């Protein structure tokens, strides 16, 4: 229903100066009464109310810049989002005509300094969004910068599914660190990484993301040095470890237990698939290597024959053509199936992590609730804290649920198109080989008929 997805014009300009794409504060004129955090529903529903509440302005700014729902370090109230509004926004986001951010990663270059050698990639961004000062940007980034971006996104959105980055090193296989193959594989993965972020309804508006795309090298390094102090980051880790001990599993909603179970099985299966795909590639390669030798033997043989020479040469040529077709089939695998399966192997790790973090957030709440049960005297103080934690948990859950649904849809789409591609590759291979052998056969039977005719003549 389109009405639900559209933001009334005045709100749009205030909430996100750029216009375009959905924001978190999509007011839902028909809030689902039974949705979690329904108490806050009316706040969202009444668009005018949002505007008039001055003490909400900080949150508005937060929303236009950094759409994080749960700042791990702060106790600031976060704007809860009803699940239905997020789903609407997700559908809205996927309409291609409304895409307003286009990113490419290309042109790897080697840089040699006294200390190290590293590769930078050119990142070109074209956009029509208002919050960007210019409509086109070109910057150079190295792998470290991507790692930084990923960690910032994880920090800001602990229960969103941040797309996978290619690994630092490839241990298996004999791809060297700076081989052309390695660099190209990495470049493609980095390109996908940034585009997935751009397509993500929340992450696309992340401030660090914007800086990554637009800042010059020196600007980026100085920005990197800011941000939460080491101490507070350590505090976050401690808290995370502390709550992981309790786990937040006992009060975990059914939905997330199901997700966990699903992810465990999915992770297993995707890893096996990854192995199978690599094995198929390996076998095809060895087959190709043997085939390379097979054709030429027939040519060699034809040199000592007279009558049969043409047939032998014909077979040699067919085998060589099939050999080339096999090479194409292999290339198809390595360009499509292998990278996708690898990404989803990484995704399965990411998703397990996201589920854990959600559990941790829940764990914080649970531990505080347990503490309250024992200290009846400080009830008031605790209840406020608990209220905030409850909000946090609700936001985390909603964010995760919406992102999860989105991820599953994308995964289904990716898998379908990848495997169709595999099937098509194989079809092309067999069709090409078939044509080759059929034309050889046709040439042979013509010859045979000619011979038979000449024998019959008296």
């Amino acid at each position, binding site marked *: 229903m389109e009405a639900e997805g559209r933001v009334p014009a005045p709100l749009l300009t205030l909430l996100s100066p750029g216009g375009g794409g959905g924001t978190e504060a999509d007011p839902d004129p028909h809030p689902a009464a039974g949705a979690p955090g329904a108490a806050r529903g009316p706040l969202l529903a009444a668009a005018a109310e949002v505007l008039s509440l001055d003490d909400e302005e900080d949150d508005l700014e937060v929303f236009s810049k950094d759409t994080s729902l749960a700042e791990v370090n702060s106790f600031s109230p976060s704007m809860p989002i009803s699940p239905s509004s997020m789903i609407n926004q997700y559908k809205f986001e996927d309409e291609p005509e409304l895409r307003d951010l286009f990113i490419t990663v290309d042109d790897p270059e080697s840089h040699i300094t006294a200390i190290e050698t590293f590769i930078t990639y050119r990142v070109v961004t074209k956009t029509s969004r208002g919050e960007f000062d210019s409509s086109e940007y070109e910057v150079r980034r190295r792998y470290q910068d991507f790692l930084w971006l990923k960690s910032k996104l994880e920090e800001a959105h602990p229960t969103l599914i941040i797309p996978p980055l290619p690994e630092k090193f490839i241990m298996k296989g004999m791809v060297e660190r700076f081989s052309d193959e390695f660099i190209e594989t990495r470049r493609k993965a980095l390109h996908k990484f940034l585009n997935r972020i751009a397509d993500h309804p929340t992450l696309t508006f992340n401030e660090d993301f914007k800086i990554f795309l637009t800042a010059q090298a020196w600007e980026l390094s100085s920005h990197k040095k800011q941000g939460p102090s080491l101490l507070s980051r350590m505090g976050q880790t401690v808290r995370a470890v502390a709550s992981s001990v309790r786990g937040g599993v006992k009060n975990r909603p059914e939905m997330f237990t199901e997700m966990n179970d699903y992810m465990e*099985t999915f992770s297993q299966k995707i890893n096996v*698939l990854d192995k199978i795909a690599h094995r198929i590639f390996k*076998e095809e390669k060895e087959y190709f290597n043997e085939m390379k030798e097979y054709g030429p033997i027939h040519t060699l043989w034809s040199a000592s*024959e007279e009558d049969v020479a043409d*047939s032998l040469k014909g077979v040699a040529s067919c085998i060589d053509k099939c050999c080339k077709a096999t090479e194409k089939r292999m290339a198809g695998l390595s360009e499509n199936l292998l990278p996708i399966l690898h990404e989803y192997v990484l995704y399965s790790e990411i998703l397990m992590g996201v589920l854990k973090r959600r559990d941790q957030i829940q764990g914080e709440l649970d531990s505080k609730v347990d503490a309250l049960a024992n200290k009846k005297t400080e009830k008031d103080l605790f209840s406020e804290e608990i209220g905030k934690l409850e909000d946090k948990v609700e936001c985390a859950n909603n964010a995760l649920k919406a992102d999860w649904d989105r991820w599953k849809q994308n995964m289904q789409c990716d*898998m*379908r198109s990848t495997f169709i591609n595999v099937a098509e590759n194989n079809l092309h*291979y067999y*069709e090409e080989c078939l044509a080759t052998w059929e034309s050889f056969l046709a040439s042979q*039977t013509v010859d045979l008929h000619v011979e038979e005719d000449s024998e019959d003549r008296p």
Partner: protein
Amino acid sequence: MESAEAETSDSRSEEDGAVPGSGFPPPEQPVAAAATMEDCLAKKMEITISEAEKRTGRNAVNMQETYTAYLIETRAVESQSEGQCAPVDSLWRRYSEFELLRNYLSVTYPHIVVPPLPEKRADFVWHKLSADNMDPDFVERRRIGLENFLLRVASHPVLCQDKIFYSFLTQESGWKEMVNETGFQLKADSRLKALNATFRVKNPDKRFTELKHYSDELQSVISHLLRVRARVADRLYGVYKVHGNYGRVFSEWSAIEKEMGDGLQSAGHHMDVYAASIDDILEEEEHYADQLKEYLFYAEALRAVCRKHELMQYDLEMAAQDLTSKKQQCEELATGTVRTFSLKGMTSKLFGQETPEQREAKIKVLEEQIQEGEEQLKSKNLEGRDFVKSAWADIERFKEQKNHDLKEALISYAVMQISMCKKGIQVWTNAKECFSKM
């Protein structure tokens, strides 16, 4: 005096018009014109090897052994007007008896390119195929190979008339004794003698020299081809079988997917079909490999004919050389001049001359020997020429057979590849449909 000439066969190579296969009959059998294609045994008699059976028995040194016996069935081909089927005769033979038969034929008909037997032990095996002689697939392929051997012999214009061959097909007991009684083993040329001849012959027929090179090349290229083919088969097997892993994983994965589940599950089934299809494909290819192997072994039979020619030619050259030297000796004795240095001549000069009577006696002996030698040389020349003529006729027959068979084999290979491709297209079309439903 002229030196005796060892005729080379080149000068006679234009003589044609001889009936193929005629002119070199084994002494024990009556001279018969070679059978034409219509008369040869294959047309008169249906020959099949219908069964193979594992047997145990005691061998020559009374040790227990296991071997396979093959059931040869023969039936006379009735003319159509009679309408009734003749009864089937059958007997059992084991591989070693086939070998005995072939050895007999090779020695008795050295000018014929004798059809080869299928390999004794499995060679050029790719890893999934068993190298065990008792393996049922190997036994089956050998059965076909032995049947093929019998049919080849039965359709050969010369060989089909052989009595021993006929008895092999029809007389179960006493056949071995019959073969041994022909004494053919005595006629066999020693390998050493043949090797010697190969190196020392001076003027072999050029065509045979070329044929020797051709058969060496053929042997080398076919063995190389068979080796690589086995490796290719191995790898192809690997590619297909790995796809079988998809089936299980897809099935397990489909259990946790709601929308994707059906598509995954059915796609997995097709992957299983794909993986299983390679077994039949490669089994068919083994028959193609067997066809090539036959010609690999035929190359050896070609070499044997060349070797026989070299031996005969060398024999001839030696006889001619011997005759020449005897004539020379005779001349020297008669004229008293020493043409060439000889120890005898020197010693007789040093230690005194012979008496005229002694010299006369010597000359007489030599003249007798020369007479004998010239007759022998004449007959050897004739033998040589006949051999070359009849051998070359069979070689021409063989060449035509080979060209025809190889072309057919290559065509059948193409047909196999086409069938494999069509199967692949079917499976992947089905799989693609399933994937689209994911």
